[in-house]
């Protein structure tokens, strides 16, 4: 186990009147990969930069392996960092970039260390290329190799995939996960892409206004969002009117358990499209409005009275769900969150 535990304690940071970090607490276990997820301006990047030492905190402490590094400058914190883009030194080749940190440390160059790192990211034959001769994805791989070459205590990834094409993005995130598991470095991964966060992380932290709304394994964040904000930000949700009674909510005639208790009365439930089943039925109360083919699954919009419901269905069902078809809508009894912003 090469990783060390990281502890952010009550970090505060304000820019003017904006609280970028509002007493943020976060514990990362040794060797764990935590993804910080949230909309832009939620403070996730600030959290990462404070941990890196690239930004001052107004208050709070940063502990790495139990040692307080709050007052330590960035170059003595022993962190490997991968930036959004364009962070490779343009006057150095890929190999020289990877060697950079090793040389700075005056460490006699471990023979083959840099080459081995390039090999790890699958670019062993690209050593003498300059950054401008490589694609964005390749550049990010080199940046990852460079960050890992110094065997950092912590690996920091600041939206490393957001400047890449969708296909490369998926490929590279799988690879980041593989490499991180292999080297076992404690990792903080900041992203605004929920799919990315869910795919790579051991635990996902959803941030809002400088605080953590929820910190949990990906499946839990998705299936049992701690708040309406999380439910809304992670994945697509239907907003369906219902009535709360006895820690459950009745929506479209179905009683659904609540994630968090709520006072009785009318409320809006956030229901995932995949928790909605649609079947043709002559006496159904719903009517198909639109249907769109998305590949393995398809999406159908149904009107039920005044309410619009989006459902995810198997693509095989699509021919029977042409617009205008009368359908019956049923909800699967999975726990749902309430949208508090509307009430």
């Amino acid at each position, binding site marked *: 186990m090469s990783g060390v535990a990281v502890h952010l304690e009550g970090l505060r940071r304000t820019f003017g009147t904006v609280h970028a970090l509002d007493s943020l607490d976060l514990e990362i276990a040794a060797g764990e990969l935590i993804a910080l997820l949230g909309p832009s301006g939620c403070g996730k990047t600030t959290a990462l930069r404070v941990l890196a030492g*690239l930004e001052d905190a107004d208050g709070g402490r940063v502990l790495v392996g139990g040692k307080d590094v709050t007052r330590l400058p*960035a*170059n003595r914190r022993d962190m*490997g*960092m991968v*930036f959004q883009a364009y962070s490779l030194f*343009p*006057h150095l080749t890929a190999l020289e970039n990877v060697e950079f*940190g090793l040389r700075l440390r005056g460490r006699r160059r471990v023979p083959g260390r840099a080459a081995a790192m390039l090999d790890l990211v699958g670019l062993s034959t690209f050593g003498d290329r300059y950054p401008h001769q490589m694609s964005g994805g390749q550049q990010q791989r080199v940046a990852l190799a460079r960050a890992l070459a110094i065997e950092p205590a912590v690996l*920091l990834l600041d939206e490393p995939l957001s400047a890449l094409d969708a296909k490369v993005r998926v490929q590279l995130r799988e690879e980041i996960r593989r490499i991180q598991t292999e080297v076992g470095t404690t990792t903080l991964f900041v992203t605004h892409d929920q799919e990315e966060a869910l795919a790579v992380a051991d635990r996902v932290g959803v941030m809002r206004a400088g605080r953590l709304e929820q910190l949990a394994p990906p499946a839990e964040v998705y299936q049992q969002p701690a708040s309406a904000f999380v439910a809304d930000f992670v994945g697509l949700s239907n907003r369906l009117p219902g009535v709360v009674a006895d820690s459950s909510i009745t929506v479209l005639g179905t009683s659904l358990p609540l994630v968090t208790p709520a006072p009785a009365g009318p409320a809006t439930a956030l229901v995932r499209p995949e928790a909605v089943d649609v079947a043709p039925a002559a006496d159904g109360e719903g009517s198909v409005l639109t249907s769109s083919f998305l590949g393995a699954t398809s999406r159908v919009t149904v009107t039920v009275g005044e309410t619009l419901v989006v459902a995810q269905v198997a693509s095989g069902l699509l021919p029977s769900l042409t617009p205008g078809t009368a359908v019956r809508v049923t909800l699967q009894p999975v726990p749902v969150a309430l949208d508090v912003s509307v009430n």
Partner: protein
Amino acid sequence: MADQAVAAPRRKPRGTALLGTVPFFAYVVIFLIIPTLVVVIGAFAGDDGGVSFANVKALTNGYILDAFGRSITLSAVSAVIGAILGALLAYALVTSKAGGTLRRVVTSAAGVLAQFGGVTLAFAFLATIGLSGFVTVWLQDHLSIDLYANGVWLFELPGLILVYTYFQIPLMLIVFLPALDGIRPQWREAAESLGGTTWQYWTRVAGPLLAPAFLGSTLLLFANAFSAYATAAALVSQGSPIIPLQIRGALTSEVVLGQQNLGKAMALGMVIVVAVVMALYALLERRTAKWLG
């Protein structure tokens, strides 16, 4: 569809499309190409109109070589001083808030001051450190310092260097600032997170990255000073220490026959120096664009 619409007429009347550029090309030929050729051909023409290398050979005369030497010294010294001070100023601006008032005001002022040459600049310095200039008189009256105790250097090479610096620094700011802007903050942060100190960042990352731009800008400043005429002409009325003033002498003295073509030879010499310098500049600029574009 749209492609065809434009492509079709292009294939047909190519000649008429060319016609549209005739005024421009004709004008440039008459007022730029012909004068250039006059200089080049004239440099190799004898007084009788035949081919002659006498003018080019005359360039090796002691007084002309000296003038070239002084021109190069003046240009090099003012370029290096201007480049260093201008780069410091540019760095000072880059560390200020991007798009802030300070930066806008200083770059705008630099835009004006870089063009501020010639007669007005010469007179500005006469008013400042001329024999009865503001600073000269003040120093004399208040501190009993005689600026010109060792001779009046304002009208000689040291004076020209000082005056030239006045437009070299702003020019450096203008041409060097884009390169500094091209330095991404990520590079500093990456260097830091990899364990680099500030010194290591400057010597291993920023230094090598900025070197071509700095060198290129210095060359541009050199060419700028080398080509300058008006400032020196207004300041120096006696003698012709530098090449542009030698050319003035050759142009205005119609007494000595053949001087006209000697002027052309000196002009050709200037063009060659400037062309070499500008070619090097373009080379370095391309490297900069690749790294910092």
